[in-house]
């Protein structure tokens, strides 16, 4: 797949800059576009339960978000160090940035030392193929630095809100540096409706790293992705296999869930599986586990779009995104929702 296939124009005034609750609305007060092979239809998010059938199964990410953005002093002045991927409490993959709104790469060198409060961060080596990310050793456990100095990772289109805005109703296991946001609009009210309609909900864990930027390689499949820690529990694998066995549909809530599930997939069904996954899902390898994907709206030329194309084909994705732009759907973690059914699901 050529990177130009994942290009589209999207006005920047469609970036959601604040959570709905900041405007006095409920979290579920966002829009929901539902894409099938034949149509892209518009709903409000609270209509989701009625759009699913009894016996369908939602799979959610139970990872909770950390305050992973740290202020750092460096040779270049005051910068930000966004922690991305935890290897140990004192060894992380991290992204130095000029500021939340201004990405790197910064002209930093191996063994350079950043100062975070009284603690030191040593930049060891750059990530192979992703030079903006550094293997970083901290002389103080990251958990302590985050508790003292951390704020949620945020970008140009939004300020940092209190941490509770970055957790979903399913957040239980701290470890993500950016909110797995697809489940954000699921409120207790929506959850009740889903349950009373007979729709199952099971969890996986995948701790997210920092957002990937635009794919740089001309060939989408060649882009380097870094691994993420995940867990597909046995009960979840069993529930998914049972759902498929009786003809129900499995809907991943978020791209993180797709990555975890596809990693645990075997031709004989899903298995319990834990570890780190570097799986890159694109049209070349496809998806096997899910029948639908509930997610937000993603940026042009990202690996997320490659995954969406694996679910529904690039033509359907672009048609849906054209529809979303015409109808002024909002992008990013506080934005609107999109339920994308696989080509052969309906």
């Amino acid at each position: 797949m050529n990177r130009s296939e994942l290009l589209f124009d999207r006005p920047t005034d469609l970036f959601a800059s604040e959570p709905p609750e900041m405007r006095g609305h409920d979290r579920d007060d966002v829009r929901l576009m539902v894409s099938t092979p034949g149509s892209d239809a518009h709903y409000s998010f609270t209509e989701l339960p009625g759009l699913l059938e009894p016996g369908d199964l939602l799979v959610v990410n139970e990872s909770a978000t950390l305050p992973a953005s740290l202020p750092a002093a460096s040779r270049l002045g005051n910068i930000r160090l966004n922690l991305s991927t935890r290897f140990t409490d004192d060894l992380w993959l991290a992204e130095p940035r000029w500021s939340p709104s201004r990405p790197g790469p910064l002209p930093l060198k191996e063994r350079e030392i950043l100062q975070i409060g009284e603690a030191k961060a040593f930049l060891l080596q750059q990530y192979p193929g992703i030079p903006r990310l550094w293997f970083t050793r901290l002389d103080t456990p990251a958990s302590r630095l985050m508790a003292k100095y951390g704020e949620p990772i945020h970008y140009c289109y939004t300020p940092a809100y209190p941490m509770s805005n970055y957790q979903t109703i399913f957040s239980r296991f701290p470890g993500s540096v950016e909110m797995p946001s697809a489940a954000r609009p699921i409120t207790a009210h929506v959850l009740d409706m889903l349950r009373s309609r007979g729709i199952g909900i099971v969890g996986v864990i995948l701790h997210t790293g920092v957002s990937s930027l635009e794919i740089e390689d001309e060939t989408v499949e060649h882009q380097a992705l870094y691994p993420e820690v995940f867990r597909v529990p046995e009960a979840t694998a069993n529930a998914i296999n049972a759902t498929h066995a009786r003809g129900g549909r499995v809907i991943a809530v978020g791209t993180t869930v797709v990555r975890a599930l596809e990693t645990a997939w075997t031709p004989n069904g899903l298995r319990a599986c834990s570890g780190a996954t570097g799986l890159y899902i694109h049209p070349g390898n496809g998806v096997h586990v899910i029948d639908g994907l509930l997610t937000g709206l993603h940026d042009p030329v990202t690996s997320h779009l490659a995954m969406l194309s694996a679910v529904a084909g690039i033509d359907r994705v672009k048609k849906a995104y054209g529809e979303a732009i015409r109808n002024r759907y909002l992008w990013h973690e506080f934005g609107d929702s999109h339920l994308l059914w696989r080509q052969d699901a309906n």
Partner: protein
Amino acid sequence: MKGVALVTGAGRGLGRIIASFLAGQGHDIVITARTSTELHDVAQFLEGNDVRIVPIPGDITDQVHRTRLLQQTRAMGSLSLLVNNASDLGEIPRPELALASLERFRLTLETNLVAPIALIQESLPQLEQTRGLVVNISSDASQGGYERWGIYGSSKAALDLASKTLAAELKPRHISVVSVDPGDMRTRMHQDAFLGEDISDRPLPEVTLPFWAWLVGQDPERITGMRYQAQGTLWEVPA
């Protein structure tokens, strides 16, 4: 502190990358390789990490050399990570197994199979103290059955089995053993294996850094007996 690591074959390629990663991590390291100049270059390159790097040139098939290595790790504390990376490709160009020199085959087995096991045997007291981890570097040639890879491949296949067996046997002593296939890389060994061919499409050994970062974060006793592909898409922790 992080404890003492021993990396064999650390003069270039993958061994050099592993050593530099561990130094950045704060490990004191004993490094060894046969080519003294390269080994001292690595030691010099790693200075400034605020850790102790001790280069001891020599051949790991030599018991006197092995004893020296382990006396050094003992003197620095106690060995917590043994990386058996030094490998011998065998005859170049790679011969067909049916026609290969048996004498040369035995030398490859000495370096790739017997010496790593000898180092493990001899370091057991130290590894037991630290509940340490042994990493044996393997190869996809150990499973491939590729033509002209029979010598190197069979030595690595045997090392894989030794790793798994040792993992089972050493579990009660809390010593862990894993086997790691680093995948194809642009190294001198790879170039020797593909004499005269262009290998510039292979990634540099830095491509394995994410795996080493992940590995040092694991509880060794949970992953003992596993075989990993450093460039693979899944690094699994068994249930």
